């Protein structure tokens, strides 16, 4: 039950994009088609899950025992960058078809703040291993959900008659705002 609350909270209520504004750069960049939104979504789920687990063990078995928690930021970002690079090389070698679908999104993920945020948040909230696992799956699932919904909306927007100044990103942001408003209605459910 507790894990369910945590998961629903992370996916719907405290949605990473709509209530914390994280991961917006790729949100605007790749949400132009629903297909690339799905690809990006899976890449993000995979990277966040892997990176959070690695940083969890790094933090509790290396940084904390040596009392160098202040090195957290620099180690985490390096681990994330290295992990992304590694995954990219691995996929490229072993599954060219998967590389075609996910490959182009991977380099974008290093600078996706969601990855760093989830890794740091797991530590800041004092989650144990199980909570860390649940949280690092739920947050990117919420990200993917919003990314996909948003991409579908944008596909329709393209054919709409938008005033010239609002074409492109500005009208997309208005849409995102309305989505945030809709999602804030879910706040009471957990």
């Amino acid at each position, binding site marked *: 039950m507790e894990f369910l609350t945590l998961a629903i909270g992370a996916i719907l209520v405290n949605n990473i994009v709509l209530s914390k504004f994280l991961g917006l750069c790729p949100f605007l960049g790749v949400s132009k088609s629903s297909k690339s939104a799905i690809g990006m979504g899976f890449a993000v789920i995979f990277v966040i899950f892997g990176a959070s687990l690695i940083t969890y063990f790094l933090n509790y078995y290396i940084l904390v025992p040596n009392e160098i928690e202040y090195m957290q930021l620099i180690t985490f970002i*390096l681990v994330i960058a290295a992990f992304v690079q590694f995954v990219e090389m691995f996929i490229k070698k072993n599954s060219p078809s998967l590389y075609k679908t996910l490959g182009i999104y991977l380099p974008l993920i*290093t600078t996706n703040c969601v990855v760093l945020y989830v890794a740091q948040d797991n530590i800041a909230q004092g989650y144990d291993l199980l909570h860390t696992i649940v949280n690092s799956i739920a947050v990117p699932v919420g990200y993917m959900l919003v990314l996909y919904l948003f991409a579908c909306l944008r596909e329709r927007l393209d054919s709409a008659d938008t005033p010239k100044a609002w074409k492109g990103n500005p009208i997309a*942001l208005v849409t995102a705002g309305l989505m945030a408003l809709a999602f804030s209605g879910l706040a009471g459910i957990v």
Partner: protein
Amino acid sequence: MWKNFKNGFIKENPVFGLYLGMCSSLAISTSLNNAIGMGACVTLVLLFSNILVSLIRKITPDEIRIPVYIVIIATLVTIVEMLVHAFAPGLYDSLGVFLGLVVVNCIILGRAEAFASKNDVLSSAVDGIGMGLGYTFAIVLISVVREFFATGAITFVNPFNSSQLIFKLGSDALEPVTIGLFSQPVGAFLVFACFAALFTVLRENAKKKESAK
């Protein structure tokens, strides 16, 4: 060089023009204090990261330049975070996790890669300050609108001593008619969208003027 500096404000404003660093600009633009604090931190990091990247541009091996830039930026951000925590604890509390996330602010890595790695130290420094101020200018604009509509007044307190009020524009009489929506995420998106549209128009006009010449 002056032109580089000026570009950061309207024509190539990193936030409204290039849509970089949006995460932090939406999240912490709830009050003028946060906006100025965040702007100052980003400008500082941007200035020093541009200088350092430019200094070592000739000895950095090309294959690992990105990790090297990330290490430099993460170091600077950690230092700024520590200084803010020590000397402006109020600001540290209200910026929270977003201070650390300056590391992944695309503006900083973007300028290191696109500008500082190819130019000399002085123009990189100027570019850093220009872009940093452009970012600050953008979030200050958003925060002024949001804070005014959400609370009825724009307040600014001394970041190093949170009990010292510097100025307060507006009046408490406006409090009953404030719109709480503006402090919510939806307010952030809508205000941002309005400014983005406005800047699109400004840029278009500037372009027209240039081509008319």
